[in-house]
């Protein structure tokens, strides 16, 4: 059962968020794969400029939810709305395949845990970023070069290696290329699926630093999925705790971690300690 947001004391929500309309609204998401319940009646709201963390163990439905945000999967029931400039407000799950692709290319960026999913390993790193711009219709070689350079730079990727192939790079560098690719078109929404899982701890810290800096400088709205509470704590403003396809608790990150209400959240928080 998800906690109704209106039950949270008003004083604990930052005032400006309550006045700004939500960027992302998902309601009533339900998804089954045969017998397996992946999502059950999930509601999500994300406000512009905030970082929403989604935490849970494997099988909690967090990755399914993220895939739906990226329009890679559709639910059995439920709606998805994004408030984007110049766009009608409609259920995105109802879009045709061409519109879906164009919307994702222009307005949604994604970083996958496995760089092989997000990158073309045999092309150059700058080419990977340029591909997004090409899909959006950019046709000037110099502009492709300079925008790719800018995006890689903002992701704190060393420009001397901008034409190296991702296959030749280390894990942390590959994630930076994914990040550059994801922000190249300055999307409204950035999705991150376990972006630092599998990297060395020291490298994780550096990549998270970059993410934090980027988020602050550009005020990017992010949804970050992780099983690692430390990562969520570092990055998220608000957090959703998921278990067995349902949201068991949600609220401000600090509040949820310091004073977890739901027994499962308590378990998660105390196990970490």
């Amino acid at each position, binding site marked *: 059962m998800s906690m109704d947001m209106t039950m949270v004391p008003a004083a604990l929500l930052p005032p400006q968020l309550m006045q700004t309309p939500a960027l992302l609204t998902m309601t009533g998401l339900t998804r089954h794969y045969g017998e397996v319940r992946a999502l059950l009646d999930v509601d999500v709201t994300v406000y512009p400029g905030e970082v929403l963390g989604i935490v849970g163990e494997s099988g909690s439905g967090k990755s399914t939810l993220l895939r739906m945000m990226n329009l890679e999967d559709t639910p059995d029931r439920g709606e998805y709305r994004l408030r984007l400039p110049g766009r009608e407000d409609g259920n995105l799950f109802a879009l045709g395949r061409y519109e879906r692709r164009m919307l994702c290319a222009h307005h949604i960026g994604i970083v996958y845990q496995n760089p092989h999913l997000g990158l073309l390993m045999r092309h150059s790193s700058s080419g990977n970023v340029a591909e997004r711009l*090409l899909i959006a219709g950019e*046709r000037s*070689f110099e502009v492709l070069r300079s925008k790719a350079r800018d995006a890689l730079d903002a992701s704190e990727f060393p420009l001397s290696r901008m*034409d190296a192939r991702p296959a030749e790079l280390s894990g942390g560098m590959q994630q930076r290329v994914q990040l550059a690719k994801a922000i190249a078109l300055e999307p409204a929404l950035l999705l991150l699926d376990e972006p630092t899982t599998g990297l060395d701890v020291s490298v994780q810290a550096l990549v998270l630093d970059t993410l934090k800096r980027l988020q602050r400088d550009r005020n990017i709205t992010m949804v970050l999925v992780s099983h690692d509470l430390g990562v969520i704590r570092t990055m998220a403003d608000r957090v959703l705790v998921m278990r067995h396809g349902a949201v068991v608790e949600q609220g401000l990150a600090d509040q949820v971690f310091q004073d977890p209400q739901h027994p499962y959240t308590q378990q998660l928080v105390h196990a970490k300690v």
Partner: protein
Amino acid sequence: MSLATLTRPWAATSYGFLDASAKRELRRKMLKAIAVPGCQMPYASREVPMARGWGTGGLQVTLTLVNPRSTIKVIDQGADDGVNAASIRRFISRVSGATETWDTLAASIVQSRHRIPEETLREDQVLVLQVPNPEPLRGVEPNMSIARQMHADADYGRLWLTLYEQIVRKGRIMQGAAYPSLVNGRHVMTPSPIPRWDVPKLNMAKHLTFLSAGREKRLHAVPPYTRVEPLVFSDRPYRVEDHAELVCRRSGIAGYFMNEIPQDQGGSVFEVSDSNLGIKAIRQAGGESVEIGATWYEDGEYSA
């Protein structure tokens, strides 16, 4: 009344070799191809008495178009007397009764492997190009079904990326012949392995062009007065081969696409690839009254 009077004498083949059902399917696909310029239309592709890969696709289209009043020109690498061109031309005229010609100006149908003639083609002429691989996305996606979906989605990002990488690695686009081109602003096609020199001739041409791949069983078309734009970046202009200054050592004409002939003592000499153009120039220089038509290129520059 007898069986003999009721029936036609048995003939080994139909007019133009292909039977009625084969021609009907081809006509329908050819019309479809004209209706959606640059989009590949699959067809059954019947066997003909020639090996696959040797022009059976072009041949099937020509045999569908041909009638006893047609005049056909067949070239390979620009030459009418290439062995394969001669073999195809002989076959077409034998099964159709059409007239053979080497003169671009006199032909109603020009079937060609890998070149477009230098003299401009008119509204009443049809160009049939032989295509080995009709899929411009082959290098990016070898699976034909996925590639077909990419065309339907106008998903050409990875093709553009290939061109971007060429400039990054080599400083220029390295695509030799078969330069991928956008037709009518919608479908990307391969213009067949014609040199870059020939691709501009397809843009807003007066003539109809068919491109047919018999082995791969796909054909596409460029209707007259249709845009054909090679994929280039806005700040890296399209470049044809560097042949503007070359002179044909046999005929003396200059500014056309040339064949390079390596010499024993080192270096090369050049001969005009459109061999009949060279022949006409020689005959004209020898005093014969021979008509050489307007050409797409003048003094080595594209000017049509």
